[in-house]
């Protein structure tokens, strides 16, 4: 019983092409992400260091930065620059720089830190975690 007998060769060809096409598309949709996932880590954007131009920051001001999935806070204070992990060591809320007081404050439970990250008061047992960086050509280079 061929398709010529039952008169639906066109339909058979269409179905074969369509199904083959969809299978190929599905295979590609699975293979591409897996191949990208398994790729070399050197190509990852995140391995590049973060450069922050310092001229935009005034004395006594702080800025939030995003770096490798972390939130950092960069502070310009008494002619030095400090970079900390903005996560409060208590339970992880982002600390806020109060320029009028000259301290970091955590809005969640009221922890207070000095401009060098040391604990002033509050329910916290560790200082703000400093992040290593270098200063080159008026820019802070992190990582």
């Amino acid at each position, binding site marked *: 019983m061929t398709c010529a007998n039952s008169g639906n060769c066109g339909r058979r060809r269409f179905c074969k092409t369509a199904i083959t096409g969809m299978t190929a598309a599905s295979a590609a949709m699975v293979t591409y992400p897996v191949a990208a*996932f398994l*790729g070399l880590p050197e190509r990852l954007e995140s391995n590049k260091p973060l450069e922050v131009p310092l001229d935009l920051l005034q004395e006594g001001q702080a800025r939030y930065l995003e770096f*490798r*999935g972390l939130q950092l806070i960069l502070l310009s204070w008494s002619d030095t620059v400090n970079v900390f992990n903005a996560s409060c060591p208590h339970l992880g809320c982002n600390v806020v720089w109060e320029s009028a007081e000259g301290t970091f404050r955590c809005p969640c439970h009221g922890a207070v830190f000095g401009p060098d990250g040391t604990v002033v008061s509050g329910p916290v047992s560790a200082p703000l975690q400093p992040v290593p960086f270098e200063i080159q050509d008026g820019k802070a280079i992190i990582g």
Partner: protein
Amino acid sequence: MQIIRRVYDWFDDRYQITPIIEKNVTKKQVPRTLGWAACLGGLSFLVFLVQVFTGVLLLMYYKPQPDQAWDSVTFLTSNVPMGWLVQRIHTVGANLMIVLVFMHMARIAYYKIFRRPRELHWVSGVVLLMLTLTLAFTGYLLPWTQLSYWGAKVGTEIPSAIPIVGNDIVEWIRRGRAISGETLGFFFSLHIWILPGTAVLFMLMHFMMIRRTGISRPL
């Protein structure tokens, strides 16, 4: 397409795969009255395979220590190409597998397919359900998020209601008095190979028994 034909013929010449493919796939015989609900078991198995595959990919980046677990997951999600996709498929797949398994159970129960001679299919199926739920529970702790920690804490606290041995059971599960890195390591090894290995064994039994007794006709 000729190349595919020739590769197929190469295997068929040696292993006579055409009768096997015809009997199980292209010319498989099923009752006329069978509906889409009969696919639910196979779908559950398919999602299980997807979970194993995505799980292996996640395992390339996950670190099972409390101070590194969440960072490794965040790194994977935000910095590895398609990492977010692999993690999302694994999370959705876990939920999807449980839904499919319950729907499959519901069909079996509704049509009373668990009756003689298929009693052990049902028993092995219940074991598989328990394994699936435990896989979901142990897997949830691994990203070490707030929800993970508190969910595991509440969940592992439940056996403490059992008189006399309750607290010992809780300590055994947690590998200590509280949820700690020891618990994480224990849940990790359960989730990675102990539970999946046991599940595969029970699946093999489940499938072999089904093949042996044949498909049951709906009422």
